[in-house]
């Protein structure tokens, strides 16, 4: 069986080894958002799937390999979804995967504390007639809410294996693997377990199923599932069926009309209602709810969504995250560059043979990458992962939803934007949590103005060091205002309707160290593969240009902008060219250029602030641009980059003039 290709995600497609006694096994994980699929995936594969306590980060599926008891099985982590009916990217990925790739088994991960909604999805999977194993996860969270669940009873009702687990602590995983492998090998022992609807709907589903089977449509989907989708008026499935049989479409439309006449409700609504009432009955049947006093999680929930404390929490969380990053980063990077300078000078080399200069550039790129990523980005990701895993970010999204709406976004966009303070590249990829392309584009646009760690280094190195910490903080505050204003403008450029926020609010939980560590590593790894090569090559190219003597003319060519408009010294022209490759080069290059670490000898205070300000808004670095191209194509990527460049120059010039007045 062909396993579909690689993803942009933090995924690995390892070489498959076939078990000696037959077909290669593929097992997929499916279920609602935030029920622990990715945690289980990591347990099974030891892989590096991104995990967070906010819904929707696995938009593309991730793959890894399970080595167990002599077997090698491919494990596929599908995005978290609630149904197959809204045509979001996540749902299409899952639905097509199940139809096309036909995994040997599907592990349906369900959250024990929100059984009803999770079972709604389980019932849909049962209609798809696929070999199913149910992983009843997060029973510890359920217990904290006073819920105990009879897993055996659920197994009897649904007729498929049910394994209770606490994935975050690895409980039950061993048995889960065993049962999943059993099901995968036995094939279709679980067929025919679909839960029946009420008579009015069920008779029509069955009639339509028979009609579909007799016409042999071969759509890849189970006939019963197709029948239900046709009655639900699912436009995608209708399109597929229409290509093969017009009469089936007609029959289904007549039947849907009949159902609607009986219930005076749309057929989709009838089916959803019946499914939910079934899910609800099963849930009450198997779970016992004891009254519990308001848990700590409830109190935290109250606090973090309070009209005053909520905003304070959000502020403290984000400010604390950044402060932590700078403090730790500063300390570590000083220590690391000291270590590197022991081997070789890392200052850009301006003279010597071409080879030596190129090598110096490449080496400088590696050093810069290491001294940037390890001390700044890793601590940032580590704490961010802990915050994500706790569930605080969902509350921040809740509190800031209406602010985001003014930029045509909804609350969920705040998550990629916070991620942007670490590095813009993964932040742009995570814009996939936004529903529509327009919203993804708007969110990505906003992210390019968020000062990542590289830009933070500039602000620290120029402003905090030589002007004052107050001015550095002011730049951050001004940046937020600019993002908001430009977001409003972008909204006019990209017209369309914004979608509203519909987001499940999950329980708070204590972050698990292993989950946080894995998450940090997953993001760092992505950064190493995406950003490092560009750093190294880019640095070498810049050094080459230097050696060829192209930089003097560039300085002069740019002087109308740098000298006349921005009021900066002539030598800053090349800094802006370097900044295109790596933002922090704007600071690092100053050292060899000026021959001193004390920039205040050559730049006045307004100039230092203006330079940092321009750098903060300036055209995205090459790595970010390539991420934009990958996600949106050349045209939007160019447009966003140009918008950055223009606003940096325009606002920079205005700022320079205002600053000379202020000092």
């Amino acid at each position, binding site marked *: 069986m062909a396993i579909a290709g690689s993803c942009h995600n933090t995924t690995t497609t390892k070489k498959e080894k076939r078990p000696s006694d037959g077909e290669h096994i593929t097992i997929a994980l499916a279920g609602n958002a935030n029920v622990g699929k990715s945690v289980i995936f990591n347990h099974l594969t030891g892989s590096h799937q991104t995990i967070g306590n906010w819904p929707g980060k696995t938009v593309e599926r991730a793959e890894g390999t399970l080595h167990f008891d002599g077997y090698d099985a491919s494990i596929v982590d599908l995005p978290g979804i609630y149904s197959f009916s809204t045509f979001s990217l996540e749902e299409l990925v899952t639905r097509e995967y199940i139809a096309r790739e036909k995994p040997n088994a599907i592990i349906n991960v369900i959250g024990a504390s929100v059984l009803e909604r999770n079972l709604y999805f389980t019932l849909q999977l049962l209609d798809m007639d696929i070999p199913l194993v149910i992983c009843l996860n997060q029973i510890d969270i359920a217990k904290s809410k006073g819920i105990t669940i009879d897993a055996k009873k659920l197994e009897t009702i649904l007729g498929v294996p049910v394994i209770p687990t606490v994935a975050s602590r690895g409980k039950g995983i061993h048995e889960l693997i065993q049962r999943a492998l059993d099901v995968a090998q036995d094939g279709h022992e679980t067929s025919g377990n679909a839960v029946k609807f009420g008579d009015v709907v069920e008779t029509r589903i069955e009639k339509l199923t028979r009609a579909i089977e007799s016409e042999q449509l071969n759509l890849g989907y189970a006939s019963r599932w197709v029948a239900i989708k046709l009655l639900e008026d699912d436009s995608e499935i209708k399109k597929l069926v229409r290509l093969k049989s017009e009469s089936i479409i007609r029959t289904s439309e007549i039947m849907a009309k009949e159902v609607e006449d009986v219930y005076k409700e749309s057929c989709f609504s009838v089916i959803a209602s019946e499914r939910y009432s079934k899910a609800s009955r099963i849930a009450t049947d198997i779970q016992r709810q004891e009254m519990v006093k308001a848990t700590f999680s409830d109190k935290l*929930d109250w606090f973090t969504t309070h009209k005053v404390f909520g905003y304070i929490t959000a502020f403290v969380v984000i400010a604390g995250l950044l402060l932590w990053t700078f403090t730790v980063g500063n300390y570590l990077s000083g220590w690391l560059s000291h270590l590197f300078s022991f081997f070789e000078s890392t200052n850009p080399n301006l003279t010597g043979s071409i080879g030596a200069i190129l090598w110096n550039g490449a080496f400088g790129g590696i050093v810069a990458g290491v001294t940037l990523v390890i001390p700044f980005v890793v601590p940032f990701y580590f704490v961010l992962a802990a915050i994500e895993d706790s569930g605080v970010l969902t509350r921040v999204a809740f509190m800031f*939803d209406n602010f985001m*709406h003014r930029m045509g976004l909804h609350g969920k966009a705040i998550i990629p934007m916070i991620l942007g303070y670490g590095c813009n590249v993964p932040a742009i990829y995570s814009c996939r949590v936004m529903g529509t392309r327009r919203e993804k584009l708007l969110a990505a646009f906003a992210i390019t103005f968020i000062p990542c760690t590289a830009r933070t280094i500039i602000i620290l190195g120029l402003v905090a060091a030589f002007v004052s910490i107050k001015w550095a903080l002011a730049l951050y505050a001004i940046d937020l205002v600019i993002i908001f204003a430009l977001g409003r403008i972008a909204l006019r450029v990209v017209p369309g309707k914004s979608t509203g926020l519909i*987001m499940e609010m999950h329980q708070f939980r204590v972050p698990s160290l292993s989950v946080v560590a894995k998450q940090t590593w997953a993001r760092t790894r992505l950064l190493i593969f995406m950003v490092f090569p560009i750093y190294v090559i880019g640095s070498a190219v810049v050094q080459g240009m230097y050696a060829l003597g192209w930089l003097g003319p560039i300085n002069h060519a740019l002087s109308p902008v740098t000298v006349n408009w921005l009021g900066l010294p002539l030598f800053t022209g090349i800094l802006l060219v370097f900044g295109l490759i790596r933002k922090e080069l704007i600071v690092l290059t100053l050292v060899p250029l000026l021959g001193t670490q004390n920039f205040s000898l050559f730049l006045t205070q307004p100039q230092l602030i203006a330079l940092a300000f321009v750098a903060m808004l300036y055209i995205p670095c090459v790595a970010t641009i390539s991420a934009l191209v990958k996600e949106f194509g050349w045209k939007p990527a160019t447009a966003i980059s140009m918008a950055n460049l223009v606003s940096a120059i325009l606002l920079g010039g205005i700022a320079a003039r205002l600053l000379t007045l202020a000092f």
Partner: protein
Amino acid sequence: MSKSTEEYLEALYTLTKDGEIASTTAISKRLKVTPASVTEMVGKLSGEGYVNYQPYQGVTLTPKGFKMAEKMARKHRLLERFLHDMLGIGKGMVHDEACAMEHALSDETARALCQTLKYPDKCPDDGNPIPPCDLKFSSCEECRKWRGGSLEKVDRRKASIVSISTLKEREEGKIAFIRGDNKVLRRLLDMGLTPGTKIRISRIAPLKGPVEIAVRGSKLALGEGIACNVFVETAVNQPREK
């Protein structure tokens, strides 16, 4: 019903929307008529059972008056949207135009207008919510599909319904109607907001932010733009009175 009765009810609908009591002075200001004629008209409306009126205390709508007033407000705000969205008339002018047109608008035309405008939820000039219609559909999708001829044949809601964005924390209701396009409707149904489902408001974000509702054993955040289109029957089923 006379045109001026309709005007009064509509004014009272706006003035008493948060359970407040409207003073005769406020009514006279809003309708640009003398206080004396307000007192006279309010007395007449009270006699017809549309309003409760205690001299020197103010005016509130009776359930009968509220239903009538809601319908007028709906027609008025739909017309404003039509004038603004389809005809491109400026926000400053739509109110007076709509006032003149609303009395002639039949229920059938109002329904057609609502469909053509794609089930609008807010009026253009002051962002006031457009009340839902009283046809007994659970979604606009059903209304769109309904081809039964005259509106006489459609059942009407007896209980009045309120948007969950007007509820307070800890208030409860049963899902009765979801307004808007099919896509949002389907997502909400998939999240468990099927007709008749019990919900409770657990949190309201400040500054017209999202509401968090408890539904089917879990919590769901709905942005204001979504919440204002989800209508429930509350236990009391009447406009809240103080």
